[in-house]
């Protein structure tokens, strides 16, 4: 390999070190971890993973997380589709202000909303349900979805719409049968990012749940504080949370910048 | 300034070229004499830009040598070759003023400011850029930007050659004319070797003294516009240059006689009896065909008006033969006979003209 690629290589190695450390620990018993400093596990054990897959308090955490993340992704994308279409195709009263207002919600510190959210969702009897977290995450995921989709839709020539009208397609038929398949890639990317941002968030998810809908992230923090330092178990649980991202990242590799930059790249 | 020679150049973008088709540039040797105005003409993908980049050093050829005068420069990087190049899309440094853009190549070479100032103003006046000299380059129109690109090539007095890679592609048609004549004028003033890449024959024929025609990675002919028109060395040149292009008619070669449409055809060049080519064609431009009382029997099929003359399309068997008839000339209505001008009728064996 070329000498000038040494910088990216070193950078990637640095990025991987903490991840390696986590994965390494997940194959060790807590006693071995706490016992000595070791660069790799002496004896590989799968006990931590077995525990997670057999103990309901653990695997329910994953199930709960995936549930609200899934619901959120569906709601965000389906609500954002028509809105993004309107922003990319039409001029209407207050469009620019609305666009910026949506962005401001991406700027709202979740800590600011933690308490009022707790009260709001208690008031509407949704506290401790996946729905509460799914709706709360709409706060930042809908603006994100609208912005990313708008970026993709603006890349589709308006002539497509006009041709469809001339051919006599009613609007909804055009939208569902022609337009949505055209921006399928954009929808996939948007779903990925909604999924991701809902998946990595913890503060709101933790605040809005207590027992029944507890997300995996919260299970991890509570386990850390209650049952002492179950480090091996914690590491295995952490490793498992990295997997969904690592799994699909390859498919969106060329859109990662676009997704993080709210479709503005 | 000096003569530029390419010696046995060959280039492939692949690591291990096997087939003929893997070579973007087939083996060639070309000399560009000092001060000449050359056009490199050919369809997209024929290797024009590759050839240009090899001369400027942006690309190192897989095989062969590049010589400037009596010095080999094959291993010289671009900035040591003293080449100026103008690209298809205007390249300007957005953050700089027009003045700074023009001064940039000189400043990079450490030329004193007083000299730079003189040179920049001289070029700016040649290109009518004086008024915008102190404005930001980013705000200009496409042709304004392209003028800056041209200017950056022209300010350097020491260049061995200026190369243009389809520089007028993004320019409005009416400005194309203006810039083209400007270029021609500048070449006469400066006298630097100029290599102009284009796929537009009008552009090539008006700008250049010598046209290099390329096809599928090889040079098929180098010649003056008149030579290309009157004696195309390859069927591609005949077909590509001229509008409409040359008529190419498959013919029989029988015992030293060229036979087409049942009649023997007289051509400017002769074939050896023992020629082993598999394919023979007669090439004759529409300008050198006329209706006659006898000759090759054809049916008149179509006629279109092209200004001072009409293009008449006729058919002989499978072949379409086009000819030009001056305005007011007589065009028979259905069947007719054609005569080819023997001085401008050539025979091609396997696409190449035989001498």
């Amino acid at each position, binding site marked *: 390999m070329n000498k000038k690629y040494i910088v*990216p290589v070193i950078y990637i190695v640095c990025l991987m070190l903490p991840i390696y*450390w986590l994965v390494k620990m997940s194959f060790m018993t807590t006693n071995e971890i706490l016992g000595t400093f070791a660069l790799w596990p002496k004896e590989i054990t799968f006990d931590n993973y077995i525990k997670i897959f057999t103990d309901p308090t653990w695997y329910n955490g994953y199930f709960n997380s995936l549930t609200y993340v899934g619901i959120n992704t569906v709601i965000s994308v389906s*609500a954002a589709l028509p809105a993004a279409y309107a922003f990319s195709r039409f001029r209407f009263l207050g469009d620019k202000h609305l666009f910026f207002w949506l962005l401001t919600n991406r700027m709202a*510190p979740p800590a600011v909303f933690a308490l*009022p959210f707790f009260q709001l969702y208690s008031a509407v009897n949704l506290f401790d349900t996946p729905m509460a977290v799914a709706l709360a995450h709409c706060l930042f995921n809908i603006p994100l979805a609208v912005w990313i989709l708008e970026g993709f839709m603006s890349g589709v020539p308006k002539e497509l719409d006009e041709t469809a009208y001339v051919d006599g397609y009613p609007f909804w038929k055009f939208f569902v049968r022609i337009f949505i398949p055209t921006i399928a890639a954009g929808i996939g990317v948007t779903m990925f990012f909604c999924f991701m941002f809902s998946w990595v968030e913890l503060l709101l998810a933790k605040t809005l749940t207590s027992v029944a809908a507890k997300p995996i992230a919260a299970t991890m923090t509570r386990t850390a504080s209650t049952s002492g330092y179950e480090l091996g178990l914690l590491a295995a649980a952490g490793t498992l949370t990295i997997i969904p991202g690592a799994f699909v990242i390859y498919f969106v590799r060329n859109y990662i910048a676009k997704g993080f930059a709210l479709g503005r790249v | 300034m000096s003569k530029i020679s390419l010696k046995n150049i060959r280039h492939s973008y692949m690591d291990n070229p096997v087939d003929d088709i893997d070579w973007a540039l087939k083996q060639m040797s070309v000399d560009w004499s000092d001060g000449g105005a050359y056009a490199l003409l050919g369809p997209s993908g024929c290797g024009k830009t590759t050839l240009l980049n090899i001369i400027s050093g942006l690309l190192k050829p897989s095989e062969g040598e590049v010589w400037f005068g009596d010095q080999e420069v094959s291993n010289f990087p671009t*900035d040591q070759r003293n080449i100026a190049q103008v690209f298809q899309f205007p390249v300007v440094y957005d953050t*700089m003023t027009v003045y700074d853009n023009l001064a940039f190549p000189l400043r990079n070479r450490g030329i004193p400011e007083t000299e730079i100032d003189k040179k920049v103003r001289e070029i700016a006046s040649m290109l009518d850029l004086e008024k915008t000299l102190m404005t930001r380059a980013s705000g200009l129109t496409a042709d304004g930007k392209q003028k800056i690109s041209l200017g950056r090539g022209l300010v350097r007095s020491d260049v061995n050659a200026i190369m243009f890679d389809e520089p007028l592609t993004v320019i409005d048609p009416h400005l194309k004319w203006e810039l083209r004549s400007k270029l021609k004028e500048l070449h006469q003033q400066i006298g630097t070797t100029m290599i102009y890449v284009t796929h537009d024959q009008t552009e090539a024929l008006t700008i250049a003294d010598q046209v290099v025609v390329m096809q599928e990675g090889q040079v098929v002919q180098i010649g003056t516009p008149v030579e290309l028109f009157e004696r195309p060395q390859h069927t591609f040149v005949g077909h590509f240059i001229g509008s409409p292009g040359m008529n190419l008619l498959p013919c029989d070669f029988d015992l030293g006689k060229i036979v087409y449409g049942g009649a023997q055809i007289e051509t400017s060049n002769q074939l050896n009896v023992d020629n082993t080519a598999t394919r023979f064609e007669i090439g004759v431009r529409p300008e050198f065909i006329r209706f006659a009382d006898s000759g090759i029997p054809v049916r008149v099929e179509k006629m279109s008006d092209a200004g001072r003359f009409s293009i008449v399309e006729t058919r002989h068997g499978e072949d379409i033969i086009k000819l030009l008839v001056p305005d007011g000339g007589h065009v028979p209505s259905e069947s007719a006979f054609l005569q080819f001008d023997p001085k401008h009728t050539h025979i091609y064996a396997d696409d190449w003209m035989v001498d």
Partner: protein
Amino acid sequence: MDNRRSNKKAWFFVLPVVALVAFNAIIPLMTVVNYSVQETFGNNVFFWEGVKWFEQVLNSDRFHDSLGRQLIFTGIILSIEVPLGVAIALTMPRKGVWVSVCLVFMAMPLLIPWNVVGAMWNIFALPDIGLLGYALNSIGFDYDYTQQPLSAWFTTILMDVWHWTSLVVLLAYAGLRSIPDAYYQAAKIDGAGAWAVFRHIQLPKMKRVLTIAILLRFMDSFMIYTEPFVLTGGGPGNSTTFLSIDLVKVALGQFDLGPAAAMSLIYFLIVLLVSWVFYTLMMKNEGQ
């Protein structure tokens, strides 16, 4: 975005989005505003307090301290991540299979749940069993982030750099990729050196994406909560208590709703103000 048709019915298209976001944004915000001007002792009994809480928060040393820490933290990570990200983006291959490999590996940290990031570093930096802590101590540094504020800051910053530099890299790289080859070729022909190429070609073309990168990094680092909370819990002492951590302590820990609400609003306004400036810049760039 322009040359669009005017359409009054377009509002129906955006209605679901507006409804959902308004439910999540406006109602809670009203609650916050409500609390910020009243005093409560539970049982839904409220007393009007006017701007008392705002005055209290704005004059409290505690708020000044956490705001100060927040500004220093954001300043430091921006001044590390942006140049570092640009530098790495510049050295990345421009095409070929290695591009995908780089992108996939570099994006990994961005996709890890934030509490896992915190937990990961919590262990990685331990002086006895963590690689980082162990390595630093064995080359002679007295390093223990659970005890020393300086070590805690170092770890928090390093963690954020680890977590988010890739975002800057990806954005800068996207900007670099949009530069046509002809620019680099022209620069070679003009005899420009590496610095001139960076200064006059690469940097101007990256201006837009870098504005976005700085905006995002400002916003997100200003809101940072989960990672330092899991890593240090705001300690040792209050040394890494940033605005969000402090806010949650006040609101959920001490249940001082009035001051917490006032603090929330001030906090939100600061983020909004700075972001608005960047947003305006960004849109201006986009208009060009």
